[in-house]
């Protein structure tokens, strides 16, 4: 999906880096000193581009190809910025090396320098530590989020480094832009100024570890479609204290009056606590994001759902008659885990274009080779997948082996770290 704007992010990033470097491109300087200047400013431009992709605005996300694509590029550009900034002090040292190794070391040794270099080192070490933690998949989310702020601190320190070097104020536009983007993200997304207020109107428990909440808008309703997702922070309510963190949840239903339903599985501390949420709890919603299952081309479709991955498909089934033939394969572990099974079976009876397979496969990865249609039966199909990462990876591999082109395989990772 989003094939219409695949170059938007690379073009914006190249423009930001190009403008920054062109602005400061050195003339009549030695090679390594020039490399140092270019790498430092290229790092600033890359950081600004990376931070632009961190702000969570629904329109920007739709324009840039979705939050997943933005976060993927946020990581790529952030690491590229870090690598460019590592070159900066090394190139300065190399410039001194031709005169004397001691001079090269004097460029790096903080105790031989002053505040400008101390702040530069502090920024680089903050970036190094922050990235090491940000790229740690095993870290609990709350701690990961807190330590992610080290990266914002790195930008502030880098700005101090540049100011104390006495650089011209006009030169500082890219680090100032980076700082402005951090502030934007903090105020609009983290503090929730961009969020719309909702209240929990109803709570259902379709299976042991899943709760479905229906949220009534208190201001304007969201222009949401089934299959999209929102970032929701559950706050306090009668006898309930929410964790207040924004997490992504798929929309499982959209009512004409603007009420939306979210399916929430107990996957972490916050979502486990949400299993006890009650009507009346205040919720702030950002989004909607994503276009999974939207703008689907005409033709037969294969839907593969694993566990709570059934939610976007349920949203579409609830919204009205299917326009094309669909085969839905819904995999779940056991009887207790079969979220919405009865409702989906009922919907299948009134959806004449839907062929439904509901399969219990225990705790092991199912035999997808036997479950998925053979290559001739997949010809001309659009394949939509939603489920745990292991299932997605195995299904994509198998579909590719069965000659389904990548453009016809659609899925979202829901990994927003």
């Amino acid at each position, binding site marked *: 999906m989003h094939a219409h704007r695949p170059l938007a992010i690379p073009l914006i990033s190249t423009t930001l880096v190009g403008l920054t470097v062109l602005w400061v491109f050195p003339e009549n*300087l030695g090679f390594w000193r020039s490399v140092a200047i270019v790498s430092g400013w290229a790092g600033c431009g890359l950081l600004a581009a990376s931070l632009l992709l961190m702000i969570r605005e629904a329109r920007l996300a739709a324009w840039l190809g979705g939050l997943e694509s933005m976060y993927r590029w946020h990581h790529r550009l952030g690491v590229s910025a870090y690598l460019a900034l*590592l070159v900066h002090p*090394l190139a300065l040292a190399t410039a001194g*090396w031709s005169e004397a*190794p001691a001079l090269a070391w*004097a460029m*790096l040794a903080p105790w031989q320098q*002053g505040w400008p270099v101390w702040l530069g080192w502090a920024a680089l070490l903050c970036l*190094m530590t922050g990235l090491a933690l940000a*790229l740690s998949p095993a870290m609990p989310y709350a701690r990961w989020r807190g330590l992610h702020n080290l990266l914002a601190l790195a930008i502030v320190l880098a700005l101090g480094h540049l100011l104390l070097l006495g650089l011209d104020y006009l030169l500082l536009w890219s680090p100032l832009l980076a700082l402005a983007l951090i502030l934007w993200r903090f105020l609009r997304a983290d503090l929730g100024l961009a969020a719309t207020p909702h209240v929990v109107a109803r709570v259902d428990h379709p299976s042991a570890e899943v709760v479905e909440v229906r949220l009534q808008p208190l201001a304007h309703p969201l222009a949401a479609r089934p299959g999209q997702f929102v970032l929701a922070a559950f706050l306090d309510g009668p006898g309930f204290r929410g964790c207040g963190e924004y997490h992504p949840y798929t929309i499982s239903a959209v009512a004409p009056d603007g009420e939306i339903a979210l399916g929430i599985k107990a996957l972490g501390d916050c979502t486990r606590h949400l299993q006890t949420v009650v009507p009346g709890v205040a919720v702030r919603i950002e989004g909607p994001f994503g276009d999974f299952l939207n703008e689907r081309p005409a033709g037969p479709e294969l839907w593969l759902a694993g566990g709570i991955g059934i939610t976007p498909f349920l949203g579409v089934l609830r919204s009205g008659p299917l326009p094309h033939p669909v085969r839905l394969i819904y995999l779940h572990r056991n009887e207790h885990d079969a979220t919405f099974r009865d409702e989906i079976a009922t919907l299948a009876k009134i959806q004449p274009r839907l062929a439904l397979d509901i399969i219990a496969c225990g705790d092991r990865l199912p035999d997808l080779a036997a479950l998925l249609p053979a290559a001739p039966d997949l010809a001309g199909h659009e394949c939509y997948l939603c489920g745990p990462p292991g299932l997605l990876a195995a299904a994509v591999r198998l579909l590719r082996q069965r000659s389904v082109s990548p453009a016809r395989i659609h899925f979202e990772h829901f990994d927003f770290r």
Partner: protein
Amino acid sequence: MMRKLFLLGTGAFWIAVLLVWAGARWLPSVPEQALPPTEKRFTLEEIARHASPEDCWMAIERTVYDLTPYLPEHPSRSGIVDPWCGKEATEAYRSKMKGRPHSPEADHLLTQYRVGALEEP
């Protein structure tokens, strides 16, 4: 992929820093150029004739420097350094950034631009 790049980059960076440190510690330094025995001497009036960024001399700690070729490389904006062209700039040189002197690297760099000594008053 990003994690691998990060680890590779970080490892290479610290190895390079270690190499620079080892080079500074164990490789011989080029001996400082001996000063010419009959060094030219300039008065403050003579230095004052070189008071523009295109022809910028300064006296620092009784030594006279022609900093014209270095000015474009100086990291500070021109408004900070240019006003010292043609002047005795020892105090400015010593008090960079709220009383802090320039680094040993800057001291070393300065020697390249030496043109003579300041005439005794």
